[in-house]
């Protein structure tokens, strides 16, 4: 009798040791990139069946996601791992929702600082010098263009890239030439109805003049205000000259471009899968994507990173922690597939590979990683953060020619400084 009990007990013990570790995962990837992430997750689950299983949930992007994370950490119901924006890390630290990724964790994953570009690594570094996230990618904005229309208007180089990318005059002349060809409603489709989105374009243009938003805790100090004004002025000039779509919201901008009514579009790399998929179905013209034009002094493009973060207090059990780290490193190593979602993988081994270098349009625009600028490091910045609402309120009228850029900048400075 005792023998049977012992056998049963041993059996129980064995199954407890072998028990699959479930990693609860939250992300906010609802678009074309979300489909690719689900593929990566199911591949991971298949490869690690019996050991680690990812239980993934996709939540609403932006404030809803970050509010849920904050409340869930407070009541101890947070996931084991989640996606986060590098730009939101300063606010997250103030809220105390993130766990440090310790040197031991990095060793366990087999990655280190040298595996990531300097700006990307800086994006996950807290003010205390500790690291709070594992960068998955960097997702800048790029210029999408319609090769058929640009070609017909004589605006393509021999290698199929647009001609007027070197200066403000060149780019405006190219827009004008496309307008004169009479083929499109707008040479450039911009998300002019959504100031939140346009922050990315405008901040890039400010960066092209070496301007900064925040200097030692004060907003738009010195000639930085003038630089923001320059950025708004050039965009307003395109609007008033009829070269850019007016009061266009995000979905309408994508629709203008994909329907051929706008010849070019400035948008995030995350729209690459939309174009690839439409083109594969034979519903899209020949298209390409390149780094933003140099309108001012030198190239600069706004970017942000998706990172993996561990919510405070959720993966403290060593077995759980090991499983979480295995998930993160597993996905990072497979991030070549993530690049088909348009994003530029953060893990250098992937971007250095021959397969990645042969991937289009990623290879054409990945040169911009050298010119990336990130959000200022303050709890007020970051996607869907308080700065966004202030900027948006004045960007929309300024971009559409309702408000003088100088007045917009004066109001923005005043509003930012009394937050």
């Amino acid at each position, binding site marked *: 009798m005792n023998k049977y009990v012992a056998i049963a007990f041993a059996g129980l013990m064995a199954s407890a040791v072998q028990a699959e570790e479930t990693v609860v995962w939250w992300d906010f990837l609802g678009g074309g990139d979300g489909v690719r992430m689900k593929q990566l997750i199911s591949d991971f689950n298949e490869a690690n069946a019996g050991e680690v299983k990812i239980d993934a949930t996709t939540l609403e992007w932006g404030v809803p996601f970050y509010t849920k994370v904050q409340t869930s950490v407070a009541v101890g119901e947070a996931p084991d791992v989640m996606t986060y924006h590098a730009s939101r890390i300063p606010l997250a630290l103030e809220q105390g929702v993130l766990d440090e990724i310790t040197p031991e964790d990095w060793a366990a994953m087999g990655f280190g600082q040298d595996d990531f570009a300097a700006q990307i690594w800086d994006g996950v570094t807290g003010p205390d010098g500790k690291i709070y996230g594992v960068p998955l990618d960097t997702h800048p904005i790029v210029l999408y263009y319609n090769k058929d229309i640009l070609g017909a208007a004589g605006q393509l180089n021999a290698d199929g890239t647009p001609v007027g990318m070197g200066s403000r005059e060149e780019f405006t002349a190219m827009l004008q030439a496309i307008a004169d060809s009479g083929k499109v409603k707008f040479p450039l489709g911009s998300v002019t109805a959504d100031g939140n989105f346009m922050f990315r374009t405008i901040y890039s243009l400010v960066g092209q003049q070496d301007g900064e938003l925040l200097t030692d805790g004060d907003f738009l100090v010195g000639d930085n205000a003038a630089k923001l004004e320059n950025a708004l002025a050039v965009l307003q000039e395109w609007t008033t000259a009829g070269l850019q779509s007016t009061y266009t*919201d995000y979905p*309408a901008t994508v629709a203008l471009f994909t329907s051929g009514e706008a010849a070019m579009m400035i948008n995030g790399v995350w729209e690459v899968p939309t174009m690839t998929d439409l083109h594969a179905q034979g519903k899209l013209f020949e298209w390409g994507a390149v780094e933003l034009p140099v309108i001012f002094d030198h190239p600069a493009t706004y970017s942000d990173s998706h990172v993996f973060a561990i919510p405070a207090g959720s993966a403290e059990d060593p077995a759980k922690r090991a499983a979480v780290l295995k998930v993160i490193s597993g996905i990072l190593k497979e991030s070549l597939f993530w690049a088909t979602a348009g994003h530029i993988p953060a893990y250098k081994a992937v971007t250095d590979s021959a397969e990645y270098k042969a991937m289009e349009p990623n290879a054409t625009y990945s040169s911009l990683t050298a010119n990336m600028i990130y959000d200022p490091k303050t*709890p007020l910045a970051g996607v869907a953060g308080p700065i966004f609402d202030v900027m948006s*309120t004045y960007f929309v009228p300024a971009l*559409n020619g309702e408000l003088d850029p100088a007045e917009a900048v004066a109001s923005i400075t005043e509003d930012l400084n009394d937050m």
Partner: protein
Amino acid sequence: MIRDRKKEALVAFILILPFLSIYSLIFVYPTIDMFLLSFTDAPLIGKGEWVGLENYTRLPNDRRFDTAFWNTAYFVLLSVIPGTFVALAIALGISRLQGRLQAIVLALFFLPYILPVSVVYRLWDWTLNFQFGIAMHLFDLMGIDRVPIFKVTGWFMPAVAMVTVWWTSGFSILLFLAGLRSIPNEIYEAASLDNTNRWTLFRRITWPLLWPVTALVLTIQLILQLKIFDQVYLFSVGGRPNDNLVMVYYIYQRAFVSNDGGRAAAIAIVLFIIVIIVSVLNFQLMRFAEKRS
């Protein structure tokens, strides 16, 4: 029979205890807690330092609070009174119809009310979107310049108020219809024997007898519209949020975007007090009007 008052009181207390405890737990306690929170600099979650009245004293100089306050007042003005009168007019029209036709027309007017706010937003965005909206194509046909309705401050509040009236008048129509049906037909018959014209019928009979319902609709609308948030939020996301702020939107911004729980609580308390004052005032005015008629 001799009644044991003490025992009765005890039984009564035991009977209302479940309600009392739940009410205290999910209403009284959070309200008191929020009141205390408004005197601290707490973030959205967690404790903060006691800062006294600072969260309140900074409100008069807070430009966003100013915008939110006046926008809310403007919205109430644009939605409550027009909404009530539109509903009354529709109810008067429907009450003249008969049988199945009446049911169908009533259903048509009531339909928007059952839609969730996100669907209402989608419908009107499809209609009024600047690039692809159906209404814009009509504008083009008629040779009128397109208007980016939800992106221009001057148009925003009137447009959202119009959408709100369209969306919520169904319920007010039902209340008015019930009110109209409760007016005895004999009164109208007696009046028609005296050759009373239709306007006098309305002014002397329908309006005064319907007044309690009108007062009810006005009060419900007033309290509801002071707490406006959903439509304003949905229509201004990405647009010009800080120009379109209303009170609840500002509370949301402070609490969930800026992580200032204490300051958000202070604004919520101010709104709470405004709602109380306005509803008491409204109620007194209604009573006064009733007595006079």
